[in-house]
């Protein structure tokens, strides 16, 4: 073989050595679908696609960089990262901006959403902590872990941003679950939520959140108000049929009947234009990504790696099930994006960075 070519291939292999080809292929597929749907949903706007592409580029770079980090370093940095990530979370309460609260910090170049970082730093922190404890976790361990979850969760609720807070809390719960938390805890938690729900309804939830829940229960009561989003979204999904109306042919989004069709409701655009076939393919890709994460976690050599990779993988499921359920009327409307499809910066970068960490803990095959 040509030595130069050989040298180049060698170089490439060295650079991509830490990347998991299976995950990369699935992610590339999702990102391509995401950009394609975004192009259509954004009314053939190239600018929107380029902006999102740039974010994917940034996210992939973060993923690549993190995948090259050794698990040991990640583990050692975890407490520091967690502490550092709480700082902007406090800061955002004072200088944040946003439509329904203080969600973003204006960094001049772009808006930064501090709560997104917690989606990475909290699993890291819990993996670090739980790894130091004998597992399954004892009562004290669970309470300490619960405290670590409650702190950022509470701060995020103060913004208020229920969707992100729930995702963050869910990742914490997954960490505990994977650590072997006793089933009794889950039984107790379900009971506790059932008891707390009325209290939350009367004292904690904001009116717009109550609206979302009421609308979820019966969207037709207010077809032109808050129920509009769900009705139009279901129409878009249902009108897609088996094979869809075709790329760029979705009338619900192109004629603006579908709200937020580049962000939270982009999966409805996909459903309308590519039909159930498209939906099944994308859901299959998500399943593959999650499964691959769990596989990598199971193969990992130490507890920290296992817990981190497993938690990050399962977190993705929450995104998919909450977003997919919400736009189709299965779940109340919660501001959760569809991973790698919805338009948005911070969350995409955070997601890809998280997957980078998963790749980092992947046991390396020796040699080349």
């Amino acid at each position, binding site marked *: 073989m040509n030595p130069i070519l050989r040298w180049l291939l060698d170089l490439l292999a060295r650079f991509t050595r830490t990347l998991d080809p299976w995950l990369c292929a699935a992610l590339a597929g999702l990102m391509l679908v995401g950009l394609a749907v975004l192009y259509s949903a954004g009314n053939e706007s190239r600018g929107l696609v380029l902006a999102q592409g740039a974010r994917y580029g940034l996210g992939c770079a973060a993923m690549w960089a993190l995948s090259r980090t050794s698990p040991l370093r990640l583990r050692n940095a975890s407490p520091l990262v967690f502490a550092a990530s709480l700082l902007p979370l406090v800061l955002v309460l004072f200088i944040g901006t946003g439509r329904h609260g203080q969600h973003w910090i204006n960094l001049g170049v772009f808006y930064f959403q501090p709560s997104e970082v917690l989606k990475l730093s909290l699993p890291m922190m819990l993996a670090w902590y739980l790894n130091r404890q004998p597992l399954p976790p004892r009562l004290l361990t669970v309470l300490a872990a619960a405290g670590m979850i409650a702190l950022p969760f509470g701060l995020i609720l103060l913004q208020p941003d229920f969707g992100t807070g729930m995702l963050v809390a869910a990742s914490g719960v997954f960490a505990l679950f994977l650590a072997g938390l006793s089933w009794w805890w889950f039984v107790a938690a379900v009971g506790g939520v059932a008891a707390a729900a009325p209290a939350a309804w009367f004292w904690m939830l904001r009116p717009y959140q109550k609206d979302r829940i009421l609308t979820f229960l019966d969207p037709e009561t207010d077809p032109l108000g808050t129920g509009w989003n769900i009705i*139009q979204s279901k129409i878009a999904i*249902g009108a897609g049929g088996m094979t869809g109306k075709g790329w760029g042919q979705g009338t619900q989004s192109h*004629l603006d*009947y579908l709200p937020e069709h580049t962000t939270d409701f982009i999966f409805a655009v996909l459903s309308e234009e590519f*039909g159930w076939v498209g939906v099944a393919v994308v859901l299959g890709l998500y399943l593959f990504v999650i499964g691959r994460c*769990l596989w990598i976690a*199971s193969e990992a050599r130490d*507890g920290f790696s296992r817990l981190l990779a497993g938690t990050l993988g399962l977190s993705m499921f929450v995104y998919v099930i909450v977003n*997919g359920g919400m736009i189709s009327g*299965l779940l109340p409307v919660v501001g959760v994006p569809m991973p790698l499809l919805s338009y948005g910066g911070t969350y995409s970068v955070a997601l890809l960075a998280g997957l980078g960490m998963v790749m980092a803990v992947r046991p390396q095959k020796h040699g080349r």
Partner: protein
Amino acid sequence: MRHRPRRLKNANAEAAQFRLRAALGFAAVLLGLAGLAGWYFKLQVLDHADYATRSEANRIKPRPVVPGRGLIYDRKGRLLADNVPAYRLDVVLDEAGDGKRLIASLSRIIALSPDEIARFEDERKASRGFRAITLKLRVSDEEAARFAVDRWRYPGVELVPYLSRVYPYGDLFAHVIGYVARIDQKDLDTLGQASTPFTHAGKTGLERYYESALRGEPGFQRIETNVDGRALRTLGTVPATPGADLRLSVDLDLQRAMVAAFGELEGSAVAIDPRTGEILAMVSLPAYDPNLFVNGISHADFDRLNTNPSRPQFNRLVLGGVAPGSTIKPLTALAGLDSGLRTPSDRVLSTGMFRLPGMRGRGWGDSHRGGHGWTDLRKSIADSVNTYYYRLALDLGVERYDRYMAKYGFGHPTGIDLMGEIDGIVPSPESKLKYGKERWYPGDLVNSAIGQGLWKVTPLQLARGTAALADQGILRRPHLVAAQRNGFGAPWQAVPQPAAVRISDDPRHVRAVQEGMEMTVNGPGGTARMIAIGAPYRMAGKTGTAQVVNRSTYAVDPKSLPMHRRHRALFIGYAPAEAPTIAVAVAVEGGGYGAATAAPIARKVFDAWLTGKMPEADPDAIDVSPVVPGATPAPATTALRRDAGDAARRATPGAANRPAASTAPPIATAASPLAAGAASSPRPPAPAPR
């Protein structure tokens, strides 16, 4: 932690447990995503049809395409109702913002009346924000230009072109054509929801009667709209069917002549072609300017019309019932012949006083105190001899009399193509009980015989009966629309008419009555003989006076009453006598005796039709000049004929346009039956003494 020994981590057990939990987690994920896919399968595949339909309904909205309203022509093709392009001002509230501020700033460049603002406020409250509300119809060119300059200041306000109805001859055809006005809920109820796309609907006259033909069928465009209702593209069009054009049998010149012939008098007249039933001219005076109504009449104008005691909006021809007076005599005579009770030469002695057999006290009089002497049928008509008819009616009996009168077209509508025509009343025991709340006396029949009492006929019914007499006893449906065409290039198609009815079996009977009517005008004692002076053709006719009597006018000085409640002068007639081409009925309110005021009007109408000679009144003074399209119909265009009458008076002082009453000596004798005891009082003929 200090007191408890630290439990050691068991790496292998933890790894095993992790694998188990990971497997469980994956199973949960698999289940969750499969469930989600299943739910999407239900939405997308099982319920697809439903959602697909809703999606189409979302984006495709039918938008009505409103066709142009049919035009109306006179018999010679002159345009009587036209459509002119106009602009209206529409406001979409969602885009326009604060309504009150908008009105305030708009009214600085466009004149907005309080009526328009009030109407806008009402609609604003009732309407959804994204629908356009019309703020002002008929924006003038000047205002449109001003608005165009300042347009950027008013988002959501738009000048929308549309076709506005214009009646070029103003009040001349008010009671024939009627008018259109903005459609309202009542119209939608009666015309059906198919009218929804239309802004205007016919309210009265031909505009109303032929509404469905004139307006056409709206078409539809299938428009793809976005969520704001903005039209993006047209997906398909179902073209509109334009409204049908109407050609009337009415003649513009004759209509003008008829109005001019009335001069300043009030009343109504109709001219019919006896050979076809076509109406040649038809006026009810005073009239009003229908243009006032088209784009919303102002309160001031509306009040002026409504408080006018002469009721300009009241169509006397089809809605106004009067007693026929002596004009009923020719038909009563025909009934006598047809029933076989009389021959034309049978004679009755008129002594000036008639009493019911076996009764004493006051009787019924003739117009000559000493009577007319021996009277046959012809003389009875020509000289209007009451006694002849008293006798005849008694011989016929009320039932047979009424049967003949119904046959001659009284007591039921003529079927003219106008809305709301009344039945009229033929005196009978039943109708007296119903309307007068009194029982029938034999004397009532005596009154009926000369057209007084409980009678109620419309001028149109009289004209129709006259036309039948003129055309060998054939009764036809009087009608205004001769032909119709569906679109500009389409051929005119005659409007089918119901079959004519023969009202007399023997042409000789009709001929005898005709001779009597000819003698009325041409005979030595004829009541209308002065109108024959100088006529190059031969006329036939009959005069009459309708007493307008009811409790409220019983003891009142007639001169204090509005014209329409005083006695009416009547005349029926036709010409030329040998081969009639025109039959008329004229009713002049407060006109005194028929011969004095009504008959001269008929003569002028005959002249105009047969010789082309227009009445001497200055036609300009009667304001029949076309309304200039584009001008806002304002009070300035003399809505009311009252005003026009004043103008006429100013323009032609003296007798120029006065009816012949002042020029011709009042030789004509009254056809009114005057009760012997009350010759000069306006009392009604007393009920038969018991």
